[in-house]
């Protein structure tokens, strides 16, 4: 384990434990964490503040501390103090800061508590600064000091220790899948329908969010029905089945790499060709884009979102969807990690346009969509719950304006946040996953 997550010790106590050496070590780590692109971006901010309205936190509270440039400059002032040019000589002119207790507390509040790493500010930045990448690095520095906020720390620790973020035992997982298999067979009246487990040599290995077996089994059975209808060769893994990687949000690359390596191990053990990720925004970013970097190697297999797989079935006619089975007007929330930072933009639209009778876009949408507020580990950090709900007002307004009856999203973090916003802002909508809607529209051939 790279650091002390101390899931049983509250953050406040962990802060009290810090001594002068902790800060010195952190600065040393900062020098190791920063790479050339980060250094270039840290030298580039001109504090024009035009990024303010890109952030849903700022749109909600109009607080200086929510402006992306402000958050970024927390990092810049420490970077310049120790690693930049002229930082010590011109500290008053450049307002550089020592990395100390006060600074650390401000970092935690702003970089964990006022940011979902959604990346919307990066698109708005005149200079093109990758703000979420820098904030993630700063979070990593805090993680190295054992300063990940409660909730997120315990989620990461659970994944690290048990293999999945909800600490579901292998027995429970196998039992749940077996039960779901019976459900699917009964529902579609086909005993040949399977939720295959550890099927060596299958084409696809399908990994899911632990919330699916735990709370939302319908999304898992939805995918199973679609794979069955498409005649897909697929399997679930018996041991490491978790698509999520919350160390992506805590910024801890070492633990993130460990978690990512487990899925790689399952791919190699089962000899599958494609790792298919269930609907999860950060799970996609982590496994598709970041895992090879964390593991410092090219991955010898394809990594796809289930959306890409199902969109391909729809395009090629491997499955048929009847939109009349979903008569309510549906809209789509684009998960930031999947769309703006992941590049999966049109697949979910293709599926929904075939699966629902009436599809309406939110405004703005696609890469310009607002974050729902549930990303960045916010759902697990209870200290920031009120702020998260309040900032979700921007998304709630977007949903309301569509007048849709159903909000679909291909991400379980987003679905949880949307469900909460639905209650909190009394939106009166149904919140569903894209694959669920596709499965409801699925036309099954009688075999």
């Amino acid at each position, binding site marked *: 384990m790279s650091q002390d997550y101390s899931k049983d010790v509250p953050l406040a106590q962990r802060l009290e434990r810090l001594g002068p050496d902790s800060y010195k070590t952190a600065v040393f780590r900062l020098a190791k964490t920063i790479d050339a692109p980060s250094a270039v971006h840290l030298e580039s901010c*001109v*504090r024009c*503040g035009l990024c303010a309205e890109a952030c849903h936190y700022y749109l909600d509270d109009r607080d200086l501390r929510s402006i992306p440039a402000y958050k970024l400059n927390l990092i810049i002032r420490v970077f310049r103090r120790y690693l930049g040019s002229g930082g010590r000589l011109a500290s008053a002119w450049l307002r550089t800061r020592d990395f100390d207790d006060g600074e650390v507390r401000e970092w935690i509040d702003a970089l964990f508590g006022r940011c979902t790493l959604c990346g919307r500010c990066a*698109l708005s*930045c005149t200079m093109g600064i990758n703000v979420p990448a820098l904030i993630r690095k700063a979070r990593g520095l805090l993680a190295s000091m054992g300063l990940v906020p409660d909730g997120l720390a315990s989620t990461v620790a659970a994944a690290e220790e048990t293999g999945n973020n909800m600490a579901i035992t292998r027995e429970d997982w196998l039992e749940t899948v077996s039960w779901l298999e019976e459900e699917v067979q009964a529902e579609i009246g086909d005993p040949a329908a399977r939720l295959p487990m550890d099927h060596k040599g299958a084409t696809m290995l399908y990994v899911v969010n632990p919330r699916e077996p735990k709370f939302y089994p319908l999304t898992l059975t939805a995918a199973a029905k679609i794979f069955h209808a498409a005649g897909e060769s697929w399997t679930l893994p018996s041991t490491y089945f978790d698509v999520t990687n919350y160390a992506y949000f805590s910024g801890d690359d070492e633990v993130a790499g460990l978690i990512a390596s487990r899925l790689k191990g399952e791919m190699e053990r089962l000899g599958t060709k494609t790792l298919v990720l269930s609907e999860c925004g950060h799970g996609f970013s982590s496994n598709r884009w970041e895992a090879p970097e964390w593991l410092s190697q090219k991955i010898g297999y394809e990594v796809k979102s289930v959306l890409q797989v199902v969109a391909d079935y729809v395009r090629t006619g491997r499955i048929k969807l009847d939109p009349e089975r979903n008569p309510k007007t549906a809209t789509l929330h684009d998960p930031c990690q999947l769309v703006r930072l992941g590049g999966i933009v049109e697949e979910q639209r293709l599926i929904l346009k075939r699966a629902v009778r009436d599809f309406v876009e939110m405004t703005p949408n696609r890469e310009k969509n607002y974050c729902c507020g549930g990303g960045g580990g916010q759902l697990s950090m209870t200290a920031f719950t009120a702020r998260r709900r309040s900032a979700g007002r921007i998304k709630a307004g977007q949903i309301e304006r569509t007048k849709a009856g159903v909000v679909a999203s291909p991400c379980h973090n987003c679905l949880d946040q949307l469900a909460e916003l639905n209650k909190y802002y009394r939106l009166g909508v149904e919140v569903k996953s894209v694959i669920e809607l596709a499965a409801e529209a699925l036309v099954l051939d009688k075999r």
Partner: protein
Amino acid sequence: MTVLKWAVILSGLYSVVALTYLIFKARSFGRRTAYSTPQGSPSRGVIYALGKGMMPWEKESARLHILTYMGGMLYHIGIFAGFGVLLAGILSVEIPPLLREALRLCLALGLISGLGLLLKRLLGPHGRRLSLPDDFGANIFVDIFIAAALVTLSKPEVTFFFLAYSIFLLIYIPAGKIRHCFFFFYSRLLFGLFFGRRDVLPVRPVER
């Protein structure tokens, strides 16, 4: 006057060398190999980032703050015009009347824009608290440079002051935020590589 001109040239050289050093210093932090397989085209991303991606209709921040965006554009045009006047002064080149008028217009608009941006930073809801002393200093130093260039066009007798002031500005450039004149291109390049690689930008044509 000749000594002063050489001093300006040397200051300019210092500025370029110092900025290049800063770029190399940033690069010295090391770049990791990108192991993930690209989904889109990094080169198309870069072309977008340095071209169309800077247009106001592509960027929400520019669209929402169109006056600031226009002000920023005019400000930078004014700065380039100022350097044009400086170059003409160093080379003792007579500026043709038409070009002189064009430069005068660019400088005047640049100066107004610069002062406008300074006021916005001072009076805007968060500008002052978000800014560093360097942000105000850089703006004021550049405004004086543009103003000096503008006056020099009409009153050649102040050329001495303009050249002397340029030495100060050129030396200051790498020390503060004006260094973004170099970092801007590198930062936009990285932006294009990142989003191009992931097939986010440029936006794909919509699949029907």
